[in-house]
């Protein structure tokens, strides 16, 4: 976390302490203790939000993992390890053992940022896209890509996947599935939605995204 993320009041207090000045004059002494604000914060959420379409207020009931990822501070190593272990345990392999679908379908899903807002009609996985290009580079052809996540251009090629069905490629295939299914399995509190775990995408959609990343014929791997 950089210095720019520190609240001005805290920054000024730190500076004042360094200079040996009284904090009183800076108006920072009566800032409420964080713990005292938990109840008012919850009350604020309750009074501020309402249901709209498929987006109900129960979306604000945090899971323990979401709560742990909401401090604005890096996780301690033990909590990170625990969250990752829990996430990894949540990953369900494909029911028929097939990990790869059609990369062209995967590309369509990667382009679509639709789903789960209050203006969407259905919260079924079939109504959702993968939003991949919002945050990742994937192919050379698509120049409109975001940068919140790393570039995934040549994802499979760079990892030496020449035959995704081979025993040699198996660990990389399973690893990639687990990251798509639940991104926290290898990166606790990752910004990436937990697509399988939260039911945002179904098995078949995940297979298509797997193919987009790992099929040597995919536009990603050219």
């Amino acid at each position, binding site marked *: 976390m*950089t210095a720019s993320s520190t609240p001005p009041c805290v920054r000024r207090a730190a500076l004042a302490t360094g200079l040996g000045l009284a904090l009183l004059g800076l108006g920072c002494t009566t800032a409420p203790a964080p713990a005292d604000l938990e109840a008012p914060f919850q009350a604020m959420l309750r009074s501020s939000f309402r249901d709209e379409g498929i*987006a109900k207020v129960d979306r*604000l009931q945090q899971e323990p993992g979401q709560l742990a990822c*909401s401090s*604005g501070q890096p996780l301690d190593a033990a909590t990170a390890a625990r969250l990752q272990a829990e996430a990894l345990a949540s990953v369900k392999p494909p029911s028929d053992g097939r990990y790869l679908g059609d990369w062209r379908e995967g590309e369509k899903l990667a382009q679509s940022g639709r789903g789960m807002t209050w203006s969407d009609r259905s919260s079924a996985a079939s109504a959702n896209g993968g939003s991949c290009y919002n945050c990742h580079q994937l192919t050379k052809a698509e120049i*409109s890509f975001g*940068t919140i996540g790393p570039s995934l251009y040549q994802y499979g090629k760079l990892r030496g996947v020449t035959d995704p069905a081979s025993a040699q490629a198996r660990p990389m295939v399973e690893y990639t599935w687990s990251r798509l299914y639940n991104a926290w399995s290898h990166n606790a509190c990752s910004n990436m939605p937990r697509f399988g775990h939260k039911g945002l995408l179904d098995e078949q959609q995940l297979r298509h995204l797997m193919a987009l990343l790992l099929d040597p014929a995919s536009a990603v791997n050219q």
Partner: protein
Amino acid sequence: MKRFVQAALGALVAGGVALVATAQTKSTADGIAEYRRMLEDGNPAELFEAKGEALWKQPRGPKQATLEACDLGKGPGVVQGAWVELPRWFADTGRVQDLESRLLTCMQTLQGFDAAALAKTPFGQGEMHTLEALAAWISGESRGLKFALPQAHPQERRMYELGRRAFYFRGGPMDFACATCHGEPGKRIRLQDLPDLRGNPGNGVGFAAWPAYRVSSGEMWSLQHRLNDCYRQQRFPYPGYASEVTIALGVFMGVNARGSESIAPALKR
């Protein structure tokens, strides 16, 4: 006239996109900045500013009164410089209020409107047009001034901390928080640059660029409208207009933007 303006803007947008596409060596931000310069003298927000000024001075509502006695924090009727000090504490309501919640107060007390009913009006309908025009004009009266939100009152500092918590609060089906998109420097969604709102992202960026005219939708968006659509895309439930969480976020972003110059009402893609 409106159709002509939109067609002309459409052509300019296409030009702007072509600029971006043909000059990949130049950054996307450079291309967008160039496009903004091209439109500098023709920001349709000016039309909303003129409308807002007229509405401020026009007798309206059940009491047929103007808003000229409205206190936006710097005394009754003082508009210039008010925007860059909001949200702030108001003793008469006993609340920290942003511009739009304060306008609701004034429209109720001075003009006799029902503030709760106004707050329930969907964007783009009825009195929301009044509020967006007023927000455009009032923010424009602080153009070029630097943000200096007061933090002297304990309730202002409390709202900063509540806003900070809201900023980092992860929830919903995609685990998003404000910080997911606005918690690191130099990031984009697709080609859209994202301001890092943990600190001060700079003059005319982030908090300092709203309200704004949005070319893509042909609409004037107030800060409340901007936050509302952020929460939609965050896959959260619906934040009430001028609700406490939106005001708390305004305090968090506004205090973080201290010293940056306001360009509102700005022009957005």
